[in-house]
């Protein structure tokens, strides 16, 4: 059998269907849920319910849990089309992409009943409490303590950078249940409602816009054994395995390809008048995006293969660096206008928006340094 790069008829049909849904239900100039305009958040909430009613929100999930039972290539198309169109699922992707799958694998029957159908229906937003002021990439060093109290625990500590914490009704919270245990056995994961007594959220103003970054203060928050996801002391393993569900990461190449296409259309014949150096950078950007897409497809095709190694990390390095490359290219194309934002700015502000978010591409969801460490470990072994 020869090589074949066709995503399949069902994936092609899904792409068409998603584009039609987006064109009908998402307003022109939409730049995601987290803007200064609260109508954008409302747009994502109604769009998620629409996707859910078609079995498209939790496309990857088994049908028994309210999912669509879609193929990995349909999931790939969903990732591409959603990100290309400024993620009209808003804050829902976290619940869909890994909280739900983690509950499926490690949750109790009660937890599955309580959470899975709600996530699949687009009715609930989740946030994750993993980062602390003193522990970011080094997750196993979290200091937030869960101190035993009767059958349960009381949690005290501080999380930071917590996306969507103001919007979320639930949080997957990591806390240290045994500071004397070996590092991999110190943490436990808790599923905690955000309205529980002792939780305070403080938004952090940032270049990314509202809702992306928050501090979450935990003051003697009471949790019970029913709130634990997986085994007590097994949080590090659950977290690592759960995050592997989204290890291929965001299809950033799709947004970049979309922006370049839209910019090219907007320029029309003026594209030919761009300086030669810009036009050749444009060519190289398109080539690098093709490579990033192919690396992502390779990682997807290996996702159930234990020998996949660092394929996903390689794909993430390629796509996150493309994000920044395209951001700079488009700014150089626009010149001073690039700094304009809002609906009167070029592409309704999408280029200015992209540049700001691209700064986070190599930081969020696993820094590029961590991805390089993983690629190097596969290439060179465990030295260092």
């Amino acid at each position, binding site marked *: *059998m020869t090589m074949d790069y066709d995503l399949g008829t069902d994936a092609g049909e899904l792409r068409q269907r998603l584009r039609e849904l987006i064109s009908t239900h998402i307003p022109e100039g939409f730049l995601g849920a987290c803007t200064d305009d609260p109508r954008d958040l409302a747009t994502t909430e109604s769009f998620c319910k629409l996707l859910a009613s078609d079995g498209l929100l939790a496309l990857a999930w088994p049908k028994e849990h309210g999912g669509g039972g879609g193929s990995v290539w349909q999931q790939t198309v969903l990732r591409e089309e959603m990100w290309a169109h400024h993620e009209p699922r808003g804050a829902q992707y976290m619940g869909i992409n890994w909280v739900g799958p983690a509950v499926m694998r490690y949750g109790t029957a009660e937890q599955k009943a309580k959470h899975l159908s709600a996530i699949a229906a687009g009715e609930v937003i989740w946030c994750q409490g993993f980062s602390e002021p003193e522990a970011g990439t080094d997750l196993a060093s979290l200091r937030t303590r869960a101190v035993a109290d009767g059958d349960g625990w009381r949690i005290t500590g501080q999380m930071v950078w917590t996306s969507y914490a103001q919007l979320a009704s639930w949080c997957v919270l990591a806390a240290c249940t045994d500071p004397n245990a070996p590092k991999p056995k110190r943490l436990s994961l808790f599923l905690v409602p955000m309205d529980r007594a002792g939780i305070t959220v403080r938004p952090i103003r940032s270049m990314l816009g509202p809702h992306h970054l928050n501090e979450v203060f935990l003051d003697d928050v009471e949790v019970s054994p029913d709130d634990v996801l997986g085994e007590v002391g097994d949080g590090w393993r659950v977290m690592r395995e759960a995050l592997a569900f989204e290890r291929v990461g965001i299809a950033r190449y799709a947004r970049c390809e979309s922006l370049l*296409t839209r910019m090219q259309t907007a320029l029309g014949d003026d594209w030919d008048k761009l300086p030669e150096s810009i036009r*050749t950078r444009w060519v190289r950007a398109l*080539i690098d995006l093709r490579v990033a897409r192919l690396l992502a497809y390779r990682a997807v095709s290996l996702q159930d293969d234990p020998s996949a190694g660092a394929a996903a990390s*390689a794909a993430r390095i390629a796509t996150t660096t493309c994000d920044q490359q395209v951001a700079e290219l488009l700014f150089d194309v626009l010149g001073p206008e690039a700094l304009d934002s809002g609906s009167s700015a070029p592409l309704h502000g999408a280029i200015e928006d992209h540049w700001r978010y691209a700064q986070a591409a190599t930081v969020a969801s696993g820094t590029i340094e961590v991805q390089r460490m993983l*690629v190097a470990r596969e290439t060179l072994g465990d030295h260092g």
Partner: protein
Amino acid sequence: MKTALPEDIAEFATVATKRLARFGGPQAALRAETEEQLRLEARAAVADLGAFDLDVRSSSDDLLAAAVLCQAAGAAALPYPLVEELLAIDGARLALVNPDAPRIEHGDLAGDWIAADLDGTRYHVQPTSRTSAKLGPFLVPATLGQPDGTVPAADVDLHLTLGSWRILGAVQQSLDITRQHVVARMQFGKPLAEFQAVRFTIADASVAARGLYELAKYTISRTESAPAQVRSADALILRLKAADTARQVFRTAHQLLGALGFCDESDVSVLDRHTQSLIRLPLSAEELALRLTAGVRGGQLETLFSDPVSA
């Protein structure tokens, strides 16, 4: 979707790599700079592998076999114009040239030659003699006659594509040599591979090489099915990416091997010197990028959002 090489092709690649290693790898290429006979032995080695029975123009299986053979040839810096002979026309080897400065790799070998530029314009060609250059030591300056018809665009595309697989092989081999070196070489009491700067540099080179490999597989998998203009753009894209990747990986190899990498006793030196002709000719990477600019608005540089190009 199936992104891995078919099993039979992967096995052929292994056999080809072993056979060309037995021929002598890059060190044989080094000796071939002064020992004429070795170039004929190089031809015999690929002939043993059935290279010249492959029908690269009309059999996709044969084309894929030719691609992995070119990859193995690149890894060995094989001193023979393999791509040129695989695409021979009526027994004459086909060389891709820049008409402004025509040079033909191994143009001094006995046999007939046809030259073509990237537009497919065909020329009678008169190779002269080798110049003992360090970079591209088998390059032979040539004189072109007046344009004399055309060669099929598909031949130009295959030439660029198979040449890119040669570059891919050289890139992968150089990276592997570098990997072995940094694991073995001790500095400040520990292997170079324990320094994070070294690890990150290797990681970046590895991602670049992996990306080139995926692009090479993708490009060759659709040479038959893509519309002609898209196929031509695909070939230029692959060659441009191959040239850029080779420059990055060779630079990495030289930096991490230190002075050893400049010595001809290191295969990196030979691979780099001998691959320069493919990296720079028939056009530089920048000139390839400029040629591709026309394909941006025409949609030949396909993306997820470009309109289909008609066949």
